[in-house]
């Protein structure tokens, strides 16, 4: 079984490498399992921040879709002030439902929206999470655009987020 998984992984890696020229930015994000009496999945916003702290590209916004719960979006405080408040949700390809505890992988093609229009420069990837009757946390990973070399940078969240890793594939 282990051998099979390894083989499968190698196959996937080969397939990914095979897509030459398709630079991408991928994100591994852990929503931690929290030992609390009342648990709600966190609202999460993921965006690329410019040096002026404006939103250069919105990557994902997860909030409770069932019922009308956009009321709580300002609790994603930084995202809201930096540009979330100018957005009319839902946004196709950006907003989605909250996600459960565990590992989540997001992949963005450098040549497709929203990254295609990103000007060369220094940016910061921001992941902000806020949970009902829980806390709020934001983690930041700086990177340069366009992607010149393969790079992986990871940070560890402490409360609302687990490990967050940014992988850049040129």
């Amino acid at each position, binding site marked *: 079984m282990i051998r099979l998984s390894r083989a499968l992984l190698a196959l996937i890696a080969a397939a990914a490498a095979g897509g030459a020229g398709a630079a991408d930015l991928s994100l591994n994000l852990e929503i931690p399992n929290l030992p609390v009496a009342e648990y709600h999945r966190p609202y999460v916003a993921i965006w690329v921040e410019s040096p002026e702290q404006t939103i250069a590209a919105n990557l994902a916004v997860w909030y409770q879709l069932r019922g009308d719960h956009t009321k*709580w979006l300002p609790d994603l405080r930084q995202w809201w002030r930096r540009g979330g408040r*100018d957005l009319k949700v839902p946004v196709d390809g950006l907003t989605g439902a909250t996600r459960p505890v565990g590992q989540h992988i997001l992949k963005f093609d450098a040549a497709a929206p929203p990254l295609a229009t990103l000007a060369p420069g220094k940016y910061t990837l921001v992941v902000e999470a806020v949970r009902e009757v829980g806390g709020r946390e934001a983690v930041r990973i700086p990177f340069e655009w366009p992607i010149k070399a393969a790079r992986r940078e990871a940070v560890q969240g402490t409360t609302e987020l687990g490990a967050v890793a940014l992988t850049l594939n040129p």
Partner: protein
Amino acid sequence: MKNFYGKLALALMACAPGACLAARAWILPSQTIVARAGGWVTFDAANSDDLFSFNQAAMPIDQLRVTAPDGQAVTPQNVATAKTRSSFDLELRTAGTYRVAVAGDSVMARWEEEGKPKRWRGLPAEMAANIPATAAKLEVEQAQRRVEAFVTVGAPTELKSSGVGIELVPHTHPNDLYVGEAAKFRFLLDGKPAPNLTVEVIAGGTRYRDSPQAMVLKTDKDGMVSVTWPASGFYWLDALVEDEKATVPNVRKRRATYNATLEVLPQ
């Protein structure tokens, strides 16, 4: 309106003659940043020295005016005045910034009648009917006040000034304040920049500390003031001008006051 004078009279009786500084006046919103139109925000309005504990006296809100983002007046609902606070609800029908203000003029008069001290406080229009022409040692003062708070639905929008009394003109929007960042405001007096004006900024929760820890600021030549927020929470702004530029006919002395409640968010 009768109620209004009644309360003013009561408030006046409570303080020593000549030193009648009212308790701190404030309007506290239940929320200052709202995601979308269609919801409600509730306000408390009180005069109390403790910020923001309604433990002293309700603020009379006869002069309450709510201005919607488009400049139109909005009628507050469920308006009630209890013993220690007034409260009202505001329906947020459009996106943008709402200004919630208790603002207006009143006149305070002191005189002697047959050797006895008399006083009256009320609206400028009713001055003639209430102050006898024969009043001796008559002293009249105009009280021009503005007590306000701001609520924004979605993105903040521009706030227009009225050109009356002391006003705050945002350079930094009052619903865009964060810990550790400097906020800049311009103060106007009668629509013109107010240089050298003392502005006090006090964080809420005064009951839970020994000193008010007021930040005392002074406006520059352009009426600008900059404040860097040390912590998140609600803050109270206080400014006062005493001069002889009363706008009510036959009155010289004026006492213009400005108070705002601002919410500062964590980073």
